[in-house]
């Protein structure tokens, strides 16, 4: 009798467990479906709707076709945007990575007040992007900015540089605040990775008389390489998407010098009301991001799948 009843009971238990598992997931699945998947579908659907419209609700009455794709992809400005995005992304993550690595190596040592200095060093990460932008607008101010003052005092410049309104300097002036905001993420992830490297490895190396550089190359770097690559990819994707810092400082100007793809998409949609073209720019951004992720898939697979 018992031998018959037991599997049946186990099955209902398993079914109840399964139902419980799905019930817990339900809110998240609904949220993702309604607020990520459906919006993505809307972007694709809108990318085929041609022309401009002030009435966003009547978009599906616009003509349907590939016109937006043709317009955007044959437009030289689009490829300029791609270039600006690439320069902005790499110009940000490389210096931010180096600062993050340096600070993480320092914070991985034992010294008094470490906890507080670590908190302070990570602080820029907690500042809203627009506030970062505003602070640097003031630091880089042409007449009264402290950066120009420093350069004047060092006799590096004789006339003031209008950083944000000069085409050749505007990109640098938006990259610097972005580096400042993003280095703490590297510090945090690299520090976390370093703390999982066994301490006795260093002690053994010290006994063997290995130099600090040799210890870094042979012990630290192999231990943090995986997380470092992941952090580079994630921060790269973040910089590629970044909107707040650039928009608050220059909104893409002067004459598109700082217009990344993200800024372009926004301006097309909300300044010129070409929702279709904006969506195409968005689709292009996603395609580029996917290519980037595809190239880094080996590293990502370990973390995400």
């Amino acid at each position: 009798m018992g031998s018959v009843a037991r599997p049946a009971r186990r099955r209902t238990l398993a079914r109840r467990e399964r139902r419980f598992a799905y019930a817990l997931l339900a809110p998240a699945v609904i949220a993702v479906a309604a607020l990520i998947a459906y919006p993505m579908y809307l972007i694709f659907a809108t990318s085929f709707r041609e022309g401009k419209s002030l009435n966003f609700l009547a978009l599906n009455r616009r003509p349907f076709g590939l016109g937006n794709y043709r317009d955007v992809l044959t437009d030289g400005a689009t490829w300029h945007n791609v270039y600006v995005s690439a320069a902005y992304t790499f110009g940000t993550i490389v210096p931010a990575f180096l600062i993050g690595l340096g600070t993480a190596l320092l914070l991985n040592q034992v010294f008094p007040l470490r906890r507080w200095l670590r908190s302070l060093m990570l602080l820029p990460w907690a500042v809203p992007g627009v506030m970062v932008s505003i602070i640097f607008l003031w630091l880089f101010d042409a007449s009264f900015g402290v950066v120009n003052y420093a350069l004047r005092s060092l006799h590096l410049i004789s006339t003031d540089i209008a950083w944000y309104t000069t085409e050749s300097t505007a990109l640098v002036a938006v990259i610097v605040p972005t580096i400042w905001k993003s280095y703490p993420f590297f510090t945090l992830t690299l520090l976390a990775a370093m703390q999982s490297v066994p301490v006795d490895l260093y002690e053994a190396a010290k006994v063997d008389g290995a130099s600090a550089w040799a210890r870094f190359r042979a012990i630290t770097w192999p231990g943090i390489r995986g997380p470092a690559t992941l952090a580079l990819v994630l921060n790269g994707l973040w910089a590629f998407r970044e909107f707040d810092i650039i928009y608050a400082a220059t909104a893409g100007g002067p004459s598109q010098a700082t217009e990344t793809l993200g800024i372009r998409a926004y301006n097309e949609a909300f300044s010129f009301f070409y929702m279709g073209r904006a969506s195409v720019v968005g689709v292009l951004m996603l395609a580029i991001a996917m290519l980037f992720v595809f190239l880094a898939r080996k590293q990502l697979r370990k973390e995400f799948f």
Partner: protein
Amino acid sequence: MRRARPLGLTLGVALLCLALLFPFYWMLVTAVLPTSMVLAREPTLLPSFADMSFRAFVAAFDRKPLATWMLNSLIVTVGATLLSLVIASLAGYSLSRFRTRVQEFTGLTLLLTKMLPGSLIVIPFFIMAATFGLIDSLWALMLANAAVGVPFATWMLKGFFDGIPRDLEHAAMIDGCSHLSAFVYVIVPLARPGIAACAIYLAILSWSDFVFARTLINDQSHWTITTGLVSFIGEHGIDWPELMAAGAMSMVPMVLLFLVLEPFLVSGMTTGSQR
């Protein structure tokens, strides 16, 4: 000799900190000095206390509805953070303990949200908000911020739940607890550092949001602090001390939260990466 090194290190790191935090220092200095001193060709790097005043703070609050904007930001941040945390803890726990079909899509969803630019997803959000009459509503902002928060928070919390042995909730269930109450009363308290780390992340994300607030809210009385701050820049002749004072005020809640909860963040990241 061995003793001297850590102190030297503290000094070195402190100096580096000063250099990296100079923008903060300059923001505060500008906020407390009179405009005449701020707009100088040779700025005073180390001002004396006699020159300082809180005039700019008073003026900023006087001239702009900063308190209202900060309150709006607070409502959106608390709402979005709580909403994301509840949804994500349930989902993260489920993903950590059970194998379901959904599992296969979670990594992909997270990756997708990491690739999805805010300035892109705001386009459909705008269309959806217009459809449901949610333009100018703080609810729309909460939902938009939660949308980006949930996938990431689920992932982070799953990592935490993975680190908590299953025996603990099994023991509670043998004692007569339902699975849900075992989760609420046994697992959630144990995962508190992880939940705290996740909460800081989410709160900072919502508090910083600019693209959703700028696009979904027109009415000035419903602006958040970020849209409010940017409105200073558009003005003819920016009043820098006022703007820096307003900016400094806007950072107080997040900086406090960050300084108090930062150890959780670091320990959270460490456990996460050892997973």
